[in-house]
């Protein structure tokens, strides 16, 4: 498995596209900036919704309205993140593909994106879904805490890709 990733990374690094991303000096900083601005969209939206669930932010607005206002944005931002992330990987496959911080980041993104979707989806057809029983209210609060922690760890892991040494295969 790891050696397959290694072979794929080596092939990516040998492409013209990878060479262009490496050699044109403004591409990586610019793409990283777009990446961080998109992270800001996700973090802003997710924190406001999670803090609302935990009773810190905008208690006068219904969760369904808030979710519609904010969570809709994160799926567009995630699309931009996927694209800019892919450009960064193509430019420097050796830096990320076999990096434990990158593995952790991807796993956490998948888990927390599913959690975010699970909060958002039932609200579309039933605005009071999360408020209809005590166990649902508790479940929602637990998901909100997990979401705050996981999204924060995703940002940390992203920064740590620059510091953690990739596994050598």
């Amino acid at each position, binding site marked *: 498995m790891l050696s397959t990733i290694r072979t794929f990374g080596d092939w990516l690094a040998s492409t013209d596209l990878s060479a262009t991303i490496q050699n044109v000096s403004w591409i*990586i*900083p*610019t793409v*990283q*900036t777009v990446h*961080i*601005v998109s*992270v*800001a*969209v*996700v*973090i*802003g*939206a997710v*924190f*406001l919704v999670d*803090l609302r669930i935990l009773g810190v*932010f*905008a208690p*006068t*607005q219904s969760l369904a*309205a808030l979710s519609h*206002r*904010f969570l809709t944005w994160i799926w567009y931002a995630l699309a931009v993140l996927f694209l800019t992330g892919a450009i960064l990987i193509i430019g420097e496959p050796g830096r990320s593909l076999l990096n434990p911080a990158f593995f952790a980041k991807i796993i956490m993104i998948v888990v927390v994106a599913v959690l975010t979707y699970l909060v958002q989806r039932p609200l579309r057809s039933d605005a009071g879904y999360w408020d209809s029983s005590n166990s649902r209210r508790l479940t929602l609060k637990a998901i909100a805490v997990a979401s705050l922690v996981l999204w*924060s760890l995703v*940002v*940390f892991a*992203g*920064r*740590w890709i*620059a*510091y953690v040494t990739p596994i050598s295969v």
Partner: protein
Amino acid sequence: MIQDFCQWLYDTAFAEMIRASGYAFPWFESVHVLAITLVLGSIAVVDLRLLGVASLGRPVKQLIREVLPITWVAFAVAVCTGGALFASNAVEYSRNFPFQMKMLLMLLAGINMLVFHFVTYRSVAQWNEGPAIPLPARLAGGLSIAMWVAIVAFGRWIGFTIGF
């Protein structure tokens, strides 16, 4: 005088600790990035409301009262962690062009905020609800979001010009 201060900061035991530890710098940096994304993500909610783009069903005053405390907490965390990063290599950062631009833009964003708060915002009762926002308020929102994106860009650029 600024150079003397930076040298003093560089020589503090705290700055020495950050340089000596392999983990302190990346951890301060990680929290700094998280805090800045929350500053930008939350201030953008207010800015887009002022631009008439989003949250139009929410009264401006209420939105500002709800969102800005979160922005300020995140900003305080960003300043503390950023201060720690700066201390670790103070003299070099103070002479770094992207760093100087980042500081200048934060100053301008602060002035933009003060003008909005003390001049433009005084008439908020007339445009509190609905999408019709007067030009000075739109301008404040547009400048704010543009400057904060530029602050992120210059911040990232610092990392490409100074090795730790």
